[in-house]
């Protein structure tokens, strides 16, 4: 076939497709998203890093602060302590959650729904409340320490009291364990439910012992879940400061150091330095997890057949006993918080009263703080879900501007490696000054108006919980056939209409899930907002810290109960609202 030349007068077209108004809109939205991600995630880290290289007057001093940090024995011991806590917690939480998830997925024990719900209960409990529960259980006057206030001693003549020596490493470990358990469980439960029955049948046919099946089938197929769980637990335990704050005693960790430096001594330079030190292991863990997950696709085959466990009386009984013990521990801690909030004077006057719910005589902001928290959680859920889902859509369902989308994707993923305290401190440096000084040039800070407002609290929450929500949104979007978009385009339907009529309805369950996740986390989180809240906008979770600080532990427990109640209510509402919603918009799922 001969090559025809172009007819005269027709120029060779360039590579770029003609940009229509719709494409302009798409690109503007993508740029807007990138802008939000830059301002919310990346740019604030710049002044944080700069501050750690400067003296309090702002002069560049190189690595002096780090040298000072690592040469002061008190502070380096914190790094060691943090690593110890994170390492031990990860080992214990992942181990416990692994068996728990395995028991729920692979045995025929009864009450699975109940045990699943209990395992996830700590997700709606602020970490501080967990610690307060531990104080009431294992503190010097705790229920367990005193043998239920001497109940056993008086009635049976045996002293069942047991002193855990709570304040210090023990207390932190126990608290972090309960805090991290549900997170690990969530990941591992998914991993455990994805079992391929064919592998087990093959193993059975080959006459492999259950133990060998476990080593050669169960562990390998759950390894990516395990890696993820390890990453999540390590990061959480390494950066959490709520629990060490309450039950840490004299056991200092990095997170409390940052807090001590920033809030206690207003030493922002050292705070920034410790923040960077805190950031390094979490970023490393993040990178390690990403590298590991790259190989994941190969493991799950589309043709896997689901595994239906068969009754094995001995194993089922063991599973039931094990899960009951874990569930009892979780319920005990949560229940104790509720009980403590109702006791008049612990441990001397055990009459029940609601007086601790009258916050007028204590600090922290009381009911107003609670209302603020509810609003903040509401805004975070609303605005956050909109930004995160739209962002995931723009990144996932766009064809042009690859490098830009990859940058946005990277930013969306990296936020999970940023501890809340780091976000909080970075935001102070970025948003507070009325002027930025860049290379000696002063320029007005366009975002200065945000500082001390509800908006910055909402933004910090969205950023803090961005990645998990983003991944949920991306997964949901990936499940939607990309050709739906192509068909819509061929029919001349603009992308926003397709988004509204097709993409969004198809993703509604994921959207609701994200909103719920954001609401609950905004309600219970302390780390970022404690550095950012203003006296005009006090928050419930911060109030718990302040109440506990002032020694009003019962009031702190009461506030915790309110937070838990709000989260549970929203969860139940979510259930009620999404069920008919499912029925209406998801009718197509029915056969």
């Amino acid at each position, binding site marked *: 076939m001969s090559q025809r030349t172009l007819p005269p007068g027709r120029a060779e077209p360039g590579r770029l497709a003609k940009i229509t108004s719709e494409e302009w809109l798409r690109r503007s939205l993508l740029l807007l998203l990138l802008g939000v991600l830059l301002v919310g995630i990346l740019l604030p880290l710049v002044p944080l890093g700069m501050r750690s290289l400067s003296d309090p007057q702002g002069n560049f001093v190189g690595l002096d602060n780090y040298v000072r940090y690592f040469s002061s024995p*008190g502070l380096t011991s914190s790094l060691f302590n943090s690593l110890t806590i994170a390492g031990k917690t990860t080992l214990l939480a992942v181990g416990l959650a692994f068996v728990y998830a395995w028991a729920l997925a692979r045995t025929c024990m009864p009450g699975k729904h109940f045990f699943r719900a209990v395992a996830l209960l700590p997700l709606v409990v602020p970490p501080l409340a967990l610690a307060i529960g531990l*104080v009431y259980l294992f*503190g*010097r*006057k705790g229920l367990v320490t005193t043998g239920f206030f001497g109940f056993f001693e008086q009635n049976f003549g045996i002293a069942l009291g047991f002193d855990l020596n709570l*304040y210090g490493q023990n207390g932190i470990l126990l608290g972090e364990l309960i805090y991290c358990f549900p997170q690990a469980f969530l990941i591992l439960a998914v991993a455990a439910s994805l079992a391929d029955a064919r592998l087990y049948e093959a193993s059975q046919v080959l006459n492999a012992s259950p133990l060998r099946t476990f080593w050669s089938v169960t562990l390998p197929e759950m390894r990516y879940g395990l890696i993820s769980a390890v990453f999540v637990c390590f990061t959480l335990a390494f950066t959490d*400061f709520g629990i*060490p*704050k309450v039950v*840490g*005693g*004299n056991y*200092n*960790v990095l997170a*409390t150091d940052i*807090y*001590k430096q920033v*809030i*206690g*001594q*207003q030493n*922002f330079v050292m705070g920034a330095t410790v923040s960077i030190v805190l950031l390094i292991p979490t970023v490393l863990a993040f990178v390690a997890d990403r590298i590991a997950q790259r190989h994941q696709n190969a493991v799950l085959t589309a043709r896997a057949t689901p595994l239906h466990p068969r009754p094995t009386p001995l194993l089922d009984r063991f599973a039931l006993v094990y899960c009951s013990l874990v569930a009892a521990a979780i319920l005990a801690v949560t229940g104790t918080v509720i009980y403590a909030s109702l006791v*008049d*004077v*612990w*441990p*001397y*006057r055990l009459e029940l009263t609601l007086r601790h719910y009258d916050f*007028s*005589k*204590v*600090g*922290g902001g009381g009911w107003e703080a609670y209302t603020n928290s509810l*609003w903040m959680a*509401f*805004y975070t859920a*609303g*605005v956050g879900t*909109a930004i995160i889902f739209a962002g995931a859509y723009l990144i996932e369902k766009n064809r042009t501007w690859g490098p830009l989308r990859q940058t946005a994707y990277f930013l969306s993923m990296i936020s999970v490696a940023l501890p809340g305290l780091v976000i909080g401190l970075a935001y102070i440096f970025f948003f*507070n000054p*009325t002027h930025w000084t860049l290379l000696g040039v002063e320029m007005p800070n366009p975002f200065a*108006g*945000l500082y*001390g*407002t*509800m*908006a910055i609290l*909402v933004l910090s929450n969205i950023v803090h919980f961005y990645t998990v929500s983003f991944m949920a949104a991306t997964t949901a979007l990936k499940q939607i056939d990309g050709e739906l978009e192509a068909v819509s385009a061929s029919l001349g339907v603009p992308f926003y209409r397709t988004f*509204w009529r097709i993409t969004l309805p198809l993703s509604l369950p994921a959207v609701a899930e994200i909103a719920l996740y954001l609401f609950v986390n905004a309600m219970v989180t302390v780390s970022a907002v404690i550095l950012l809240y203003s*006296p*005009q*906008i006090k928050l419930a979770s911060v109030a718990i810290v*302040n109440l506990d*600080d*002032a*020694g*009003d*532990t019962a009031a702190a427990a009461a506030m915790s109960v309110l937070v838990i109640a709000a989260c549970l209510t929203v969860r139940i509402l979510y259930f009620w609202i999404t069920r008919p919603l499912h029925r209406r918009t998801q009718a197509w799922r029915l056969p």
Partner: protein
Amino acid sequence: MKQWTTAIFALLLLAGCSAVQPSGETGTAAPSGEITVYTALEDDQISSYLALFNEQHPEITVNIVRDSTGIITARLLAEKENPQADVVWGLAATSLLVAEQQEMLEAYAPAGLERVRAEFRDSDTPPHWVGIDTWFSAFCVNTVEVEKSGLTMPTSWADLVKPEYKGLIAMPNPASSGTGFLSVSAILQMMGEEAGWAYLDQLHENIAVYTHSGSKPCRMAGAGEVAIGISFDYRAVKQKEAGEPIEPVFPAEGSGWEIEANALVRKSEIVPAAKVFLDWAIGDDIMQLYAGSYPITSVATEIPIPDGYPADPLAQLVENDFVRMAGEREQILAQWTERYDGKSEPR
């Protein structure tokens, strides 16, 4: 459905951006508006005091930032370039002296200043700070725990270093707590530098935890978490009243003490409402309330000394050189932190 959801989202976006911001309106006759007040007063005191202010000045909105003395001081100093607070209310005088040295306080003579006892206010005219009351060290001793463990009731600082109290005492960290600092400064002034630190070394052996706030040791004693909390008078008396098994003990050697004082923060725009607040804060009405909590107030009142306090509170107070303590504050805290911070509660 469509319009409805769009409206909700629009609302959310708007609400997310609209912010509660302090607006310092410059009123004419009766200044109104919003002020931010930094204070280290106790939460339960603030609520009753503030109720009075709100009743008398409903046009002024007060945003309270309460924290321990050390925290409020650090925050105040850190915000030197861009002060957030309009007024400081009930903060340790030693802290205010430090702030004054950094020229962060605006001299202001509140209405009724002449009624305030001379030793309770800055000697400058107009003064940079004006006191409202004093508070002093007290031990909160849990009687139930003492009896159960067969301990003796401590009556003096000297008693606290007895080995029988090992691990049973909580004390505030002087770096963050004003109460902690006044106790430490009293010890150093009473015993002298060398003996004072030696005593603190010994005391350190018995301390279970150094807390961040001055009231927390008393709270812990009230809950039985420790047997003895080194705290201050008001907290001890209040908790006993609330029915906790607490016996306030005022040490035989005398108590460290401090003046709680008010000041006007120096900033580019001083709102008139701030001055209204400072005038009110030493007025007769509020003094009556102060007197209900504290045996010693800066303006004499008719209120008798509340139950549970020493009959002659002034006799309980040790000699205290505020100016010297303010000058040496940083150095004392540095030394203290180096020696004992390991046992400090986070913060």
